[in-house]
């Protein structure tokens, strides 16, 4: 009996606290705007939505992206020349394809949403690409890199990051110049296995001997794989995965005294890697279809603004998300200029994008992927704890 009473008291206490919390709810001013929210009158509100992992194991990636999107939206609103109010809707899909449909429904049911940044992963994109396509809502992927997405017939799908088949082969070509035997390690994720497949295919085409193994992304002990890489006598190792794991891997490689070339793709090139790997990361190469966000002038402003707003430097895929958001904002502006803002007109404008972003020049092909040749793949190297650009990978020595 006593414990039951205790429960009721505890519940009462909880209720009281929530009530207290709610009393201090924000009362932002401004009444309810009457009238229809669609139709594009002056002072209308349009929303861009972000769909990605905001909780769960992959939350960091989603936060990197949603922060950039928030920054772009805030900047657009601050400029004051929009003629409408822009809002950002955050839909959390936990990076899980089975949860993506609910997140998509949350986005779709808000009829002020004119475009979507995301979903962050190829898997989640595959799960909802058709849904968004059927609803005519433009989606711009900032980080889903699977090389087959453009072939799946999603009607409103776009992507601002180069896919595995652009980045992987470029890296492989460069490696083929340097090494006779390459060990490819992937992280057994959708992304990693895609990149690995692209790299291996190209390496084999160039006549390089390839060995391939995988290490689960949740593993922290890279001892065995590093020992195996060393024992294999490979001249180079390519890691297909993400930054945090890449850092652990390179540390383990250093620990076993591996001396060959170490390289990875875009997923690893971030401050998480440089901080995590420390000195062990020096001499690590990256292939990335992106501009150097710390060097390009437009990117420098972004980096500073991001740092100021979130008290942390932009990280993996933040620049891509920033570009994706700006593309959507520009499309809404263009649609408004052309007369009507609907999901369909915004999607048309997105299709027409010709945008100089901080990650490079962005133009979409008819399949929604980056137009061929619009992105150059650059080579980077970590030197003294900083990632520096070595320029176009096809020309790099």
């Amino acid at each position, binding site marked *: 009996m006593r*414990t039951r009473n205790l429960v009721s008291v505890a519940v009462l206490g909880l209720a009281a606290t929530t009530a207290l919390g709610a009393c201090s709810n924000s009362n932002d001013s401004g009444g309810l705007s009457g009238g229809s929210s669609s139709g594009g009158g002056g002072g209308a509100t349009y929303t861009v939505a972000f769909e990605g992992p905001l909780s769960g*194991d992959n*939350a*960091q990636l989603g936060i990197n992206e949603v922060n950039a999107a928030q920054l772009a939206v805030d900047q657009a609103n601050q400029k004051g020349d929009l003629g409408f109010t822009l809002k950002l809707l955050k839909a959390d899909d936990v990076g899980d394809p089975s949860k993506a449909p609910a997140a998509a429904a949350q986005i779709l049911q808000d009829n002020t949403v004119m475009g979507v940044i995301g979903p962050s992963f190829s898997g989640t994109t595959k799960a909802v690409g058709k849904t968004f396509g059927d609803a005519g809502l433009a989606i711009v992927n900032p980080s889903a890199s699977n090389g087959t997405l453009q072939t799946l017939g999603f009607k409103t799908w776009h992507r601002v990051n180069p896919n595995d088949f652009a980045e992987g082969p470029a890296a492989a070509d460069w490696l083929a110049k340097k090494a006779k035997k390459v060990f490819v390690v992937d992280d*057994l994720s959708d992304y990693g296995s895609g990149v690995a497949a692209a790299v291996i295919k190209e390496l084999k085409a160039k006549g390089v001997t390839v*060995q*391939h*193994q*995988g*290490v*689960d992304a*949740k*593993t*922290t*002990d890279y*001892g*065995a*794989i590093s*020992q*195996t890489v060393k*024992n*294999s*006598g490979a001249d180079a190792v390519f890691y297909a995965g993400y930054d*945090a794991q890449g*850092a*652990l891997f390179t*540390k383990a490689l*250093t*620990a*076993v005294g591996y001396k060959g070339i170490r390289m990875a793709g875009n997923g690893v090139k971030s401050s*998480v890697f440089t901080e*995590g790997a*420390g000195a062990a990361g020096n001499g690590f190469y990256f292939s990335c279809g992106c501009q150097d966000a710390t060097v390009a002038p437009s990117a420098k402003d972004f980096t500073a603004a991001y740092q100021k707003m979130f008290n942390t430097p932009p990280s993996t895929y933040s620049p891509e998300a920033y570009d994706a958001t700006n593309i959507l904002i520009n499309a809404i502006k263009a649609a408004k200029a052309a007369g009507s803002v609907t999901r369909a007109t915004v999607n048309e404008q997105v299709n027409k994008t010709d945008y100089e972003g901080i990650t490079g020049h962005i133009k979409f092909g008819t399949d929604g992927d980056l137009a061929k040749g619009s992105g150059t793949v650059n080579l980077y190297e970590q030197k003294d704890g900083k990632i520096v650009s070595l320029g176009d990978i096809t020309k790099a020595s």
Partner: protein
Amino acid sequence: MTDFLNYLILGLTRGSMYALIALGYTLVYGVLQLINFAHSEVFMSGAFGSYLVVSGVVGSHHNLPWYATVGVLLIGLGSGAAVGAFVAWALERVAYRPLRERGAPKLAFLISAIGASFFLSQLAGKLFNRLSQNQFPTYFNANGAALHIGGASVSWIQLIVIVSALVLMIGLDRLVNGTKLGSSIRGVAEDAPTAALMGIDIDKTISRTFIIGGALGGAAGFLFGTAFVFSNTMGFIPGVKAFAAAVLGGIGNIRGAMIGGLLLGVVENLVPTAPWNGGQAWIGIQWTDVVAFVVLILVLVLRPTGILGEKLGRAA
């Protein structure tokens, strides 16, 4: 041969950590016949707790002299163990004892522990951060070779992990087999009602068992964080593996947990890489976990109570 030794050392390092964590599972199982699913979070809190203490006391200096390094290790192990012990104690008080008093069914304990596990891991994430990698400052050259055995080199961190684990496990063995507390733990494990009649305080013994298991888990958390990285979700996978190791050795059996842990670590490193196979990988490291679980299942099918059987404190 060198390759074989290299992988063996890697396996022993990993296995030592499994064994330390597995001891926590096995001790609790011994006295309560319950899987303490939240033990993985005890391990995690040991890493966070020792980080807070070590970085608070020592700061973020790099490459300390050897005597300071020893100090750091002792502080880390001690604080990890203390935090782990506290969390395990609190866990028993909050998530287990009320259920025991109500005579809840066994599965309720498991679910209560799972709830506690979610809670602790996410609370740590909320309070500290949810990054997948937090690192201890590099107080010493952990990866430098400490000694060479037959062409294979053992790094400092590997040496530290293996030695600390051994010391802790021997200490535990002495504690359980050679002290009054140990005999009361064994008494409760053998036959709780009889132990109660003999004047052993069951509640207190269970509490202390949690504390001992928690201390070992917390210390393992520190070792793990030093050797690799730590995060609020770090507990899950080593926790599952250590649980598997405990069962492999014979759950409830202390020496079984040690053997199970070491064996699992070695198997995980040797079987997928097959160093005896002339450098030719046999199935690849991506099959590591499959190997671990297949070995576990095979052992259990052949010996349904694990390698050593399941009595706490009984050698064989």
